[in-house]
């Protein structure tokens, strides 16, 4: 069901995660344990009478992962692969349950659209319960752009099944043929006999459960009336009024505020600490447990002051790599790991190429960057007794965090509940539960609820970074065509590694290396780095071949190849919008492009930059970006993602970077780590290609991939200087 060639490989982790293709998801180590928290009678007790539809996952790997103790359901063994369910009550309200979470990608709205569409029910009467380990089905996590291709489909299936069951009920009640009945706007209508009945009316006093049927045709995208339309954010009003409670806004009576003592650097170990003065302070709870030192106090300031007053001696590890020499370090420190390092299609010949052919090579680098979600990690932990823990926290993996908590406190997972209120962004940076574990440790000692909100400095230092990397590219150019391609990525990752261009001989390799800082997933993973290298080098090759860069790409993308044809289409659409080959260029301005295919999404971004050669300032004047990821579910939400991804991408392209030396982060603040601001946002034109014949893909990630190379290629066009290191202009071009 996925366009991704990786989908056919054997997965080595949670759903949607292929360790062979995406080794940079370093933070995802554990296998999931499927579970199901509520019994059928509990459902109806909580929700009232009505109809309950379950979606049972049929994916082979989900079945492989379904070991462990079985649960009972109505006297029958309960399938453990249930991935979503829907309840339509006799009160006329619909509640849908999914383990996916909302971090600003707007899936609460797009998933509600899926239910409204297939159930033919008003969207304002639909509630989505998301990411609550006690109420929602197991879910490996909200990552990999999987929510739209998988959960949207599953919710369509449960909703269609509910609709059909309601039609059957009405047919029975009226003693008529179901084929003559239609569902719309929460009612079943029999137009022949001029009668209709509300869904809720049909369900009075009933308790019906069923799984989705093996086959039930869904409404095709071409006939969508709710999906495919720009439905506004379903709970937008709660955000503009400040009413929405993010994880960091959660509170409980008697709650204390936590703070953790951090080492001064990565790799530092505690030599000595004196917590006695803090312990003697009234109202303060101090925990020193192994490497963990933290306090809980009646106020945020009080907790911070108490930790600042603890005297600790640390032994730091000298001689660690720094941001200055990290690229040499990566190449000098290989660390071979399991599978997926190499993919070869007719390896390039070792002997000399054809006479007249041109061999070219270049090395690209990417720095460590931070996700810097505006809401830092936050958790509120409450122990109801010594063995039962509830934590509200901002995470993309509530079930993964539950497992971390269960392991940390040696509890059965059933004793731990994790709830994920809609969170202040993540970008792949909130897959882990360290803040939840810390808050829970403090709450255990305090015997009161404890809230812990990481400071910005902690978030910049102790979260994980997008991996640093080196990419070597070599190619042979013969008669304007690329005949050989070699691509070696050191450490940054395997996503987007493969070239989608038509080249007869290709070899790509991912090399594991040692690395100096904590690193992990980031929006689009290594696809940004790999596209930066590939698309910049395509520009170098086009210039060497003296062919227009757009034409050069199109010469390597066959119209009749299903993958290449789609990519061609986005390059052509973005070129058209940008006015490639037609727009006039001011002095000091340059044009460039970059694009690619990843996670079933195709993107092409074109950039115009202005370079002030005197000051070295680089600014992005305008962007045109085209995206095609199958049928569009919400064009407004999609445009928002495309615009936002491109603006975020400008940061990593031009100036974002972590400065570090000897395990210390030297710029862990917004005053020292520059992120894109209003003045960095160019004019952006967005083109959506709506392929109603292709299932919808997620779009939170792949739209970020093209912008860095587009900017780099535009800088080359403007001043003739090729920039091969991201960020390309951390202090303008002068010191670059």
């Amino acid at each position, binding site marked *: 069901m996925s366009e991704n060639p990786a989908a056919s490989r054997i997965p080595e982790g949670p759903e949607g995660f292929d360790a062979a293709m995406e080794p940079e998801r370093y933070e995802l180590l554990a296998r999931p344990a499927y579970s199901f928290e509520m019994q059928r009678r509990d459902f109806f007790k909580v929700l009232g009478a009505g109809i309950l539809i379950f979606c049972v996952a049929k994916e082979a790997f989900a079945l492989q992962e379904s070991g462990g103790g079985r649960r009972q359901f109505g006297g029958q063994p309960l399938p453990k692969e249930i991935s979503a369910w829907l309840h339509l009550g006799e009160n006329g309200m619909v509640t849908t349950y999914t383990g996916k979470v909302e*971090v*600003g*990608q*707007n899936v609460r709205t797009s998933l509600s659209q899926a239910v409204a569409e297939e159930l033919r029910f008003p969207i304002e009467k639909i509630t989505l319960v998301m990411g609550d380990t006690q109420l929602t089905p197991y879910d490996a996590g909200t990552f990999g752009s999987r929510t739209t291709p998988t959960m949207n489909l599953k919710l369509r299936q449960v909703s269609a099944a509910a609709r059909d069951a309601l039609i059957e009920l009405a047919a029975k009640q009226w003693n008529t043929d179901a084929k003559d009945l239609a569902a719309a706007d929460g009612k079943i209508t029999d137009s022949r006999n001029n009668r209709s009945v509300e869904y809720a009316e049909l369900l009075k006093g009933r308790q019906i459960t069923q799984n989705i049927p093996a086959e039930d045709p869904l409404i095709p995208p071409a006939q969508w009336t709710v999906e495919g339309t720009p439905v*506004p*954010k379903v709970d*937008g*009003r709660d*955000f*503009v*009024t*400040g*009413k*929405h*409670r*993010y994880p*960091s*806004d959660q*509170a409980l009576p008697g709650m204390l*505020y936590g703070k953790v003592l951090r080492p001064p650097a990565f790799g530092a170990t505690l030599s000595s600490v004196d917590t006695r003065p803090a312990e003697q302070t009234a109202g303060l709870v101090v925990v020193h447990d192994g490497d963990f030192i933290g306090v809980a106090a009646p*106020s*945020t*300031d009080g907790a911070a002051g108490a930790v600042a007053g603890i005297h600790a001696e640390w032994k730091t590890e000298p001689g660690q790599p720094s941001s200055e020499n990290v690229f040499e370090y990566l190449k000098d420190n290989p660390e071979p790991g399991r599978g997926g390092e190499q993919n070869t299609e007719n390896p390039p010949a070792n002997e000399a190429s054809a006479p007249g052919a041109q061999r070219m090579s270049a090395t690209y680098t990417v720095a460590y960057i931070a996700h*810097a*979600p*505006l*809401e*830092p990690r936050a958790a509120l932990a409450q122990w109801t007794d010594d063995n039962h823990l509830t934590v509200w926290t901002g995470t993309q993996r509530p079930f993964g965090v539950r497992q971390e908590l269960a392991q940390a406190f040696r509890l059965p997972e059933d004793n731990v509940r994790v709830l994920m209120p*809609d*969170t*202040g*962004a993540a*970008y792949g940076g909130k897959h882990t539960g360290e803040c939840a574990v810390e808050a829970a440790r403090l709450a255990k000692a305090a015997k009161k609820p404890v809230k812990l*909100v990481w*400071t*910005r400095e902690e978030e910049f230092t102790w979260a994980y970074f997008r991996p640093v990397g080196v990419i070597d590219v070599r190619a042979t150019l013969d008669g304007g065509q690329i005949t050989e391609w070699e691509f070696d990525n050191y450490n940054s990752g395997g996503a987007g590694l493969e070239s989608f261009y038509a080249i007869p001989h290709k070899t790509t390799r991912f090399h594991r290396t040692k690395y100096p800082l904590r690193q992990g997933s980031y929006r689009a993973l290594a696809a940004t780095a790999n596209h930066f290298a590939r698309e910049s080098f395509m520009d170098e090759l086009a210039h060497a071949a003296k062919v227009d860069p757009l034409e050069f790409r199109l010469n390597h993308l066959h119209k009749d190849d299903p993958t290449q044809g789609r990519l061609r289409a986005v390059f052509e659409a973005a070129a058209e919008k940008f006015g490639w080959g037609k727009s006039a260029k001011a002095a000091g301005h340059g044009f460039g492009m970059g694009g690619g295919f990843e996670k079933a999404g195709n993107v092409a971004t074109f950039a115009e930059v202005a370079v002030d050669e005197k000051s070295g300032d680089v600014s992005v004047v305008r962007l045109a970006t085209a995206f095609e990821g199958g049928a569009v579910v919400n064009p*407004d*939400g999609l445009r*928002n*993602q495309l*615009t*936002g*991804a*491109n*603006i*975020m991408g400008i940061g990593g392209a031009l100036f974002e970077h972590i400065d570090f030396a000897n395990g210390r982060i030297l710029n862990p*603040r*917004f*005053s020292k780590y520059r*992120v*894109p*601001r*209003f*003045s960095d*946002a160019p*004019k*952006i034109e967005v083109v959506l290609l709506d392929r109603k014949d292709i299932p919808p893909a997620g779009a939170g990630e792949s739209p970020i991939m093209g912008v860095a190379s587009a900017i780099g290629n535009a800088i080359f066009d403007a001043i003739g200087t090729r920039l091969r290191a991201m960020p390309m202009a951390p202090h303008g071009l002068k010191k670059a």
Partner: protein
Amino acid sequence: MPRVNQLRVNGKTYTIDADATASLLFVLRDQLGLTGSKYGCGEGQCGACTVLLNGNPRRSCITKVGTAATREITTIESLEKDGKLHPVQQAFLDEGAMQCAYCTSGMIMTAVALLRANPRPSEDQIAQYMEGNICRCGTYPRIIAAVQRAAQAGTEPRA
């Protein structure tokens, strides 16, 4: 150390107990339960904590509660009146000018102050005035459009 026992917030007088040097943001959030103002950086660099002091936008994370005690404090919670959104709130909804929306209350408070000072700002003037507010999701173009929409709404005669 001097303590602060009273605070005027959104037209109401609150009794509090805080050190005069405590951060206004944490007093609002932790003592008064007004969590619409957000913590984003603690150094006045991101604008998520923006409130109005006597009508002027201030970073509440680096404002001492002792300083705020002599002023009228306005937070996001006061903008909606009798179930009706402030024109800036309405414009943010109409433009869909948010993703995770964690920056939204700070953006709205800054925009309210801007429109009081300059009822018809240009795109450049909006960008310049709001440069200190970070939207990490990158919704800047929509925020500019929302502020312009609110400016438009503000100049139309009210029914």
